[in-house]
């Protein structure tokens, strides 16, 4: 018997010790295998063990643990490999919309509480997206579904198995007639194999794929392949409505690659003169993260993109077509084409899923003509494990709905999808769902679809169940569980499909192992421990795709794309996935709801983004000047958007850089059943969507309703007002004068005080706004690491968000075509911290390593420190934001190394002092100093572009020392004498000398002028 730290079964209730969900539900023991003695303490065994340990850690069932059981019981016999308080890291993968992003799950005594990027995984490279960072909250989400439901009543997994048995019997007769399977993107070889096997077993069954935010228009236009980029090889990048830095499955990797070509250093004048940057052109209807990173961003309506693409093609000699362009478009296209020609194979032209389908073929021609294909872009079969649906990619759900309406679907299996919410307006899926005799929904929430389904099976979180998944470049990785399912009723898609396929009830682990049978045990263990299946061992790309279409793609756009030249109304509807809640699947996640959208800084909702010129014309704003000022306090006028007979009302939000005539609305809002967090937040753009035009099109009618609705943002002011917190220069100026940010400033301000002496460590940070793309991953990582509470829409409206780290976003230049700069700001750990002097109770003090530390239990909440903080990075618990005792699962989520703050207490960035402490303990135990790179702050670890560097300023070899010594390093507001520990590098951009005008940043304010020579 494994020496588990529990009492015997019969003793447990009397002692109030409660072992796990099994006790509460009255059935079963631990998860299979949990109690078996390991023959060798390998990873798998340990995982089982840690799962069991987690189950012990007062995991909540739906009813929560009894109060008496809240005791801390030490291990009687400590499980091997577990040292209390020392976290373990397990390689697994976060799966977003089907695509894997390798992560390392940090597990504290069996509780995963933080995900870090997996350096060995190609889609992560050690960094992680905001979505991956936020997924830990999905695991502990109190709103998670925890019971099987049958016709609205609680049922059991046993009942599911019984129903499956009957279905199998029936399907054996009919060959699965009437069975339809609806999935999202599936890249899991195991699940794909299972479903294929199911389809083989029941040949009359039908498979449908519906991925609302990635319907596959690009793939269809390219003839079944997807581009995979190598941004680091591209000296010139042209993006046509593409957002590879945020919205592509490979975004994290692309971010790293992008930054590697944008980073400039000037350790010596020679290095400064030799500094190079890639040049990025972007044309898009609404500002995106990638567009904001571009040197020349052109705001164009979607229907102009084809003309631009053709102009580029003509410019690089990839087929001539005469198009008419406006002056700005022509200049942009000329400059871009010239740069592309010059760069040749070291160039990249990309378009995103939301771009008009006709663009992709043209771009592929351009890439081929430039010789970039195979260099910066590879067109490869997508990693899908299931065959792509035939025909129009948007029509699968419509076809299924027609079948359902015709009564030809008796059993509908929906794996992790929510079509009752996300179906386009012309697809009455939710209505016809009721006509399906047996609808089975697998999902983590009782969402809109679960509510209407006959069966609902709670789905496990990826950290709770075995699976596998492929990354954007088809690299496979094993998804291994870190803990047993929090809710015993929860099962993975593998379990459910297996139940429908056979009575064997094979555990998911065995299914995955069987899928990877070609790996021997050593290779399997290595795949588990590294998170990736080695390339040679992972030969099969995707079972469903037999012949990748490498021939030239169909040039004709799908018949569905609307004609572009003539539009009856001046407005074009532009739908796109949301940067935080994506297609709505993250609407239940409070961290993501409260995550300021990169460009708009809107939280808790969406809005109809409208160009400044249009807003002026419609009378929504009085002048462009109002755009400088607080969106936060303004109740936005509500617009009625009518498009092809459907209409919704949405608040208008004037977006600088929005293409005139284009109204952008993001998907993912207006959820009806998304728990307390997501229900009723925002407006559902699906109600405007058409299955034949998933991203909208011309013909939008706008009406001002006269109503108002507050749009909540976290940044009230949009301009730098001549203060230059971000100091900008062109690459040319950087070559000549790398010290441009500190021109005319004294090197060191005098002080009356003796300087602090640091004998030991002296921590410091450096941030490079040049490579910061504003993706917000750091913000979520900080929240996850530091137990930051979610405060909710109303509190954010009252300017009380609790993010220790914020990403400031400033518009520079005219509102129609501004440049965008991002600047992550957290506590600067000032050497002469203004907050320290004014605290009457010494609750914020300077420590011996230069940190400005908060003593929470000393803080009485005068808030004077915050008032006196020129950076306004302190956050105050105005109310009891952390919900103590209300949701046991959230308590499990908290980082045990970070104090949970109570109301009335000030808090702020600590430079992740707990990570410093952990490294210090290790180093002291080994009798050495902490090495450079040993302390990695949460924000730094997750940053895809490595814009954040942290280290010991007393270590001459530390990277941060070199960065602080850069001539273009400066302290934010250093003129106040605060001597910030965090230094920023000057923002460098690489505009084309051929282009002046809108792309050259200019601001009304003199300071911006001076730091940005035209």
């Amino acid at each position, binding site marked *: 018997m494994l020496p588990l730290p529990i009492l015997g079964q019969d003793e447990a209730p009397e002692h109030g010790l409660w072992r796990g969900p099994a006790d509460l539900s009255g059935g079963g023991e631990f998860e299979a295998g949990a109690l078996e003695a390991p023959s060798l303490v390998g990873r798998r065994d340990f995982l089982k063990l840690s799962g069991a340990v987690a189950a012990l850690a007062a995991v909540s069932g739906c009813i929560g643990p009894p109060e008496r059981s809240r005791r801390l019981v030490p291990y009687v016999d400590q499980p091997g490999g577990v040292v209390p308080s020392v976290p373990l890291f397990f390689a697994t993968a976060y799966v977003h919309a089907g695509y894997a992003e390798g992560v390392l799950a940090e597990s504290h005594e069996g509780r995963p509480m933080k995900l870090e990027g997996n350096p060995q995984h190609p889609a992560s490279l050690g960094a992680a997206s905001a979505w991956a960072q936020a997924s830990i909250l999905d695991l502990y989400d109190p709103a998670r579904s925890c019971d099987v439901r049958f016709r609205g009543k609680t049922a059991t997994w046993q009942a599911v198995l019984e129903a499956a048995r009957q279905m199998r019997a029936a399907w054996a007769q009919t060959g699965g007639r009437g069975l339809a399977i609806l999935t999202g993107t599936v890249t899991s070889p195991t699940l794909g194999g299972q479903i294929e096997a199911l389809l083989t077993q029941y040949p009359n069954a039908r498979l449908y794929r519906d991925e609302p935010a990635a319907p596959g228009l690009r793939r269809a236009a390219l003839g079944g392949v997807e581009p995979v980029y190598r941004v680091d090889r591209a000296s010139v990048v042209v993006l046509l409505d593409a957002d590879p830095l945020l919205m592509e499955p490979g975004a994290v990797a692309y971010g790293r690659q992008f930054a590697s070509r944008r980073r400039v250093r000037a350790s010596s004048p020679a290095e400064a003169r030799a500094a190079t940057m890639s040049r990025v052109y972007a044309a898009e209807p609404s500002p995106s993260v990638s567009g904001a990173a571009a040197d020349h961003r052109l705001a164009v309506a979607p229907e102009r993109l084809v003309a631009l693409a053709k102009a580029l093609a003509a410019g690089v000699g990839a087929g001539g077509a005469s198009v008419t362009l406006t002056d700005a478009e022509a200049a942009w296209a000329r400059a871009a084409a010239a740069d592309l020609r010059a760069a040749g194979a070291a160039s990249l032209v990309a378009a995103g899923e939301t771009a008009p389908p006709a663009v992709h073929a043209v771009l592929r021609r351009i890439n081929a003509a430039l010789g970039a294909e195979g260099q910066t872009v590879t067109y490869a079969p997508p990693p899908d494990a299931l065959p792509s649906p035939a025909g129009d990619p948007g029509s699968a759900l419509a076809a299924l709905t027609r079948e359902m309406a015709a009564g030809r679907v008796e059993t509908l299996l929906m794996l992790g999808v929510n079509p009752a919410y996300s179906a386009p307006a012309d697809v009455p899926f939710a209505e016809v769902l009721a006509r399906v005799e047996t609808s089975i929904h697998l999902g983590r929430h009782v969402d809109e679809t679960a509510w209407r389904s006959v069966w609902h099976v709670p789905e496990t979180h990826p950290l709770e169940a075995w699976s596998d998944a492929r990354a954007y470049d088809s690299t496979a990785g094993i998804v291994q569980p870190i803990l047993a399912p929090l809710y015993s009723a929860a099962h993975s898609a593998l379990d459910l499909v297996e139940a429908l396929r056979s009575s064997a009830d094979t555990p998911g682990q065995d299914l995955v192992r069987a899928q990877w049978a070609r790996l021997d045990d050593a290779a399997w263990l290595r795949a588990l421990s590294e998170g990736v299946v080695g390339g040679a061992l992972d030969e099969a790309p995707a079972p469903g795709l037999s012949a990748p279409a490498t021939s030239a793609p169909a040039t004709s756009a799908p018949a569905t794309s609307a004609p572009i030249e003539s539009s009856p109304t001046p407005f074009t509807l532009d739908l796109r996935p949301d940067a935080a809640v994506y297609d709505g699947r993250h609407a239940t996640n409070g961290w993501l709801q409260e995550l300021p959208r990169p460009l708009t800084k809107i939280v808790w909702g969406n809005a109809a983004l409208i160009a400044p010129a249009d807003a002026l014309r419609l009378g929504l704003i009085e002048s462009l000047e109002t755009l400088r000022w607080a969106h936060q306090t303004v109740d936005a006028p509500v617009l009625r958007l009518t498009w092809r007979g459907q209409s919704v009302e949405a608040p208008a939000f004037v977006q600088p850089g929005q293409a005139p005539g284009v109204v952008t609305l993001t998907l993912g809002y207006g959820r009806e059943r998304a728990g307390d967090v997501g229900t009723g937040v925002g407006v559902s753009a699906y109600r405007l969507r058409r299955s034949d035009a998933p991203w909208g099109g011309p013909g939008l009618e706008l009406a001002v309703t006269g109503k108002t609705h507050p749009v909540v943002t976290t940044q009230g*002011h949009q301009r730098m007002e001549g203060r230059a917190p971000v100091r900008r220069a062109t690459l040319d100026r950087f070559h000549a004068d790398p010290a441009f940010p500190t021109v005319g400033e004294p090197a060191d301000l005098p002080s009356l005080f003796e300087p602090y002496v640091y004998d030991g460590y002296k921590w410091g940070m450096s941030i490079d706004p040049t490579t910061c793309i504003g993706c917000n991953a750091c913000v979520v990582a900080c929240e996850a690491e530091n137990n930051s509470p979610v405060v909710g829409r109303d509190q954010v409206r009252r300017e009380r968000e609790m993010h220790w780290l914020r990403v400031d976003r400033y518009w520079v230049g005219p509102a129609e075509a501004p440049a965008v700069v991002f600047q992550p700001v957290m506590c600067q750990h000032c050497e002469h911290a203004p907050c320290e002097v004014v605290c009457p109770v010494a609750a914020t003090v300077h420590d011996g390593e230069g940190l400005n530390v908060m003593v929470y239990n000393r803080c009485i909440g005068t808030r004077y420190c915050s008032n006196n903080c020129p950076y306004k990075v302190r956050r105050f618990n105005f109310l009891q934001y952390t919900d103590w005792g209300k949701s046991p699962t959230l308590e499990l989520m908290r980082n045990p190394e970070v104090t949970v703050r109570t109301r009335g207490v000030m808090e702020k960035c600590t430079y992740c002092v707990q990570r410093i402490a952990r490294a210090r303990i290790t180093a002291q135990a080994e009798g050495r100093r902490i090495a450079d790179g040993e302390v990695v702050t949460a924000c730094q670890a997750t940053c895809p572009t490595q814009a954040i560097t942290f280290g010991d300023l007393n270590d001459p070899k530390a990277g941060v020392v070199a960065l602080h010594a850069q001539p273009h390093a400066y302290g934010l507001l250093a003129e106040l004498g605060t001597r910030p520990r965090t230094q920023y590098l000057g923002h460098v951009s690489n505009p084309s000398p051929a282009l002046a005008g809108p792309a050259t940043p200019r601001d009304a304010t003199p300071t911006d002028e001076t730091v940005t020579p035209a």
Partner: protein
Amino acid sequence: MSMPYPTPTGASSGDEATEALAPAERLEAAVALAQRQSRLAPPVSSEATGPPGQPPEAPLILPGQTFASVSESVSGIVYDRKLPRVLYLFAALTFSLTMVLLGAIGWLFAKGVGIWGVGMPVAWGFAITNFVWWIGIGHAGTLISAVLLVTRQPWRNSINRFAEAMTLFAVANAGLFPIIHLGRPWMAYYILPYPNSMGLWPQFRSPLTWDVFAVSTYALVSLLFWYLGVVPDFATMRDRAPTRRQARLYGVFALGWRGSARHWHRYRTAYLLLAGLATPLVVSVHSIVALDFTVAIEPGWHSTIFPPYFVAGAIFSGFAMVLTLLIPVRALVPSVRPFVTQRHIDFMAKTILATGLLVTYGYVSEAFMAWYGGDPAEWFVIKNRAFGPYAPMYWTLIFCNTVVIHTLWFRWSRRTLWFLWIVTVLVNVGMWTERYVIVVTTLHRDFLPSSWGMFSGTFWDWAVFAGTLGLFGTLMFLFVRFVPMLSMSENRGLVAEASGRPVPPQQARLEAAQERAPTASPYTHEETLS
């Protein structure tokens, strides 16, 4: 102090000449004795007749008053129980508002300061505004009492008690805010230097720590000063009490005062000493409150003009508040009128004008220095005050504090009480607005534009503010109702002056007593404490 009050027939030793008389008569006799034996030369004040070469001013006390009528009038306010009905209505209103205050604070403690409108960046809102405003109002009393006593301005005598009481109540209100605005008010004692197991002291570099000492010292000295001044009057109240219960109650507060010469001697010494102590406090308290802002790095706060300009503003608002209260009380309680004359009001109006001009100078200087100093953030704050989203508040304060006061150049304005009352109310509004503008406009747009925000008070902000107004009114009402609202002893001195023999009675009694008992040491003579 075995005997809290003398019975009419009970004889205690000492001062036997007056002992058999009724209290009022005793005093009159004492003063008469003093007048007889006075060696004091010229009158201390010639205000009653005005300086030579100038037309005679209105008197500080209306003619026809005697020692007895002074006591009668003032103690009658308490004993007659015939305050006008409107005062009771006023009391009902203010008492209700006090309940609102209790409710608002209860909800505040239950939920946290998040029920207010504060956020980031404007982490201080109404609470600090109210704190500074109330502290400012609390300046008038001590200024009138202590500074005017030390500078021998006898016109203070009829209004000092009232003003001091107002000070106390204003400071009590002010003292509420630093505690209730805390995130964790139950930990407020951390700010005190008390011995604790961690050996941890407050952080003495913080102006908030200085505030604790400044405000508590001020409150303590003001209380002592007020109480000391009222002790002889409590004795009068005791002596004139119609019922034994009242006599016993007032007797407790009178601390066994029997008006002996030795009492007067020590009283005068202590009173003068306390006045000497209180005088610098008038300057220090508000200077230190101003340092809360000056020490900060924030634009619009970091300014050395703040201490003097805050003190001027404090006196300005304090005098305005005295008049705001005194004018209606004077109108409603006829027995006050002989003692609070047109002349007092005139003096106070002039003080308001003078301090208002100082405050105006402060505004001008602040704006000028912001421009002249060349700091863009500083200059932005000034521009933002005048033309930003809080511009209405700013122009309200400019109107109230720098424009309206110029009407006080005219005698008509100073004498037309309804008009003057409106002016003083406007000054109070203007000063509250000024504090609001200082606190909010600096914080809402300071250094980094990304962090700029807005502030507006919530229902609970207003409830607490209105509640403190209610508490203030309630306390003032209770004061008028139960405490002699004018100083009887000092007004009797004014009667003596008005009668052409300007001899301060206490001084006279002292002289008399010393003559009669030249060998008695004031330090061993225990008779009055028997």
